[in-house]
């Protein structure tokens, strides 16, 4: 049999685990904490600066998000953010800079396929699920808040 039986598959999976390197979870956690923390701290610094310059808080918050998105997009375009992501994993993916990276990277990547079928059609290839399920969970939480926890 060239297609292994269920039992053969299971015993092969057990065998293979012995040869597979473990994910360096501790190293990844440290890198994610350090880089993710640094990104968030720089966002906080921008926010504090804007507030200190007498900008109303809600405006300062919007401007901070915009600045972080712009920085993420710029670093993606310069070919730096993918390296930060490779080093820090979720620490680079979770902040809003990572969201910018997930949209800008396919936009750059698929420019060669044209602006319609390339850039615009593929732009949300990575970020699409985040937007869809982010919106969906916002709706669900809002419904709960209105009808259950009011």
């Amino acid at each position, binding site marked *: 049999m*060239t297609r*292994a039986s*269920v039992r053969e598959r299971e015993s092969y999976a057990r065998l293979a685990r012995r*040869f*597979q390197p473990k994910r360096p979870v501790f190293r990844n956690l440290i890198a994610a904490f350090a880089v993710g923390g640094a990104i968030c701290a720089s966002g906080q610094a921008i926010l504090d600066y804007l507030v200190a310059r007498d900008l109303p808080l809600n405006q300062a918050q919007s401007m901070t998000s915009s600045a972080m998105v712009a920085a993420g997009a710029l670093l993606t375009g310069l070919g730096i953010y993918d390296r930060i*992501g490779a080093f820090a994993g979720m620490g680079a993916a979770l902040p809003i800079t990572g969201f910018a990276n997930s949209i800008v*990277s396919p936009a750059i*990547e*698929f420019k060669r396929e044209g602006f319609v079928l390339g850039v615009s059609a593929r732009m949300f290839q990575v970020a699409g699920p985040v937007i869809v399920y982010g919106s969906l969970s916002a709706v669900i939480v809002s419904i709960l808040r209105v009808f259950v926890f009011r």
Partner: protein
Amino acid sequence: MPVVVATGSVAGPREGEGPLGKLFDLVYHDTLAGERSWEKAEARMLRQAGDIAMAKAGLEDADVDFLLAGDLLNQIVSSSYMARERDIPYLGLYGACSTMGEGLGLGGFLVEGGFARNVLVASSSHHDTAERQYRYPTEFGYQRVPVSQWTVTAAGAAIVSGSGTGPRIEAVTVGRVQDYGVTDANDMGTAMAPAFADTVWRHLQDMSRKPEDYDLIFSGDLGKVGSALGEYLLGQHGLDIGAVHRDTGLMMFEMKPEICSGASGCGCAASVFAAKIWADLASGAVKRVLLVPTGALHSPTACQQGESIPCVAHAVSLVSEAAVER
């Protein structure tokens, strides 16, 4: 016996800086290779590997009866764009990373069967074209898992002839597809190891040989994980290949962290064969080599639907000219 009279190899920047860098016929210092897209760059590298092999063998298109070529891109377009530039009857191949083994085997059959005087065999891969087709946009920041492999940017070509001087193809074992239920497309070494072990075992049985009868046995990019597993699986058959086993996936790069388990891609076994293995056989530095390129025959769609990865490995036994005459 069919003779591999000449080879050509073209490599990208990272490959050019690797341990085999000086052996490639042509190295590009830019992954675009002067083209407007990576796909065009890959087609160019494949075409040039063929040009180099043809020039070294001193052949014109009219002398060559078949072009056998394959690559990783959808509809094997790199190969078809290579064939577009040549006046040679073309058969497209798909064997993923095993393509060079498939091509050398079929080339040998065509020549030995009297159907061809010369056959041009070629195969390529490109890191960035493979990334965007199989994984994520190249600028997307994500963490690679330790079992994953790095697709090489390289192309290799060879001329299989009915006459002439050079290493001979003395035997070919065509692999059976093996599927041990691995569904993780990042873990191709684990998926491919059983195919490698099965083909090597059957080849040695067929030929009544032992691993020591070969100076070297090359697997075609199993990486660290797959190589260790392949050796273990053959050990279960009582075959210890440890002393003679090399993996082309572990020869291509300096093993930096981002390379993870090793190199992969159609161009890996193809270019390592063209630049290193063929040259060592031609010079007589090694007498008999078993080249076993292994391919993971999955598609992103099939893997997303939960399908496991069918794998194949083809063994091509090559002997140096000196060894034949003895």
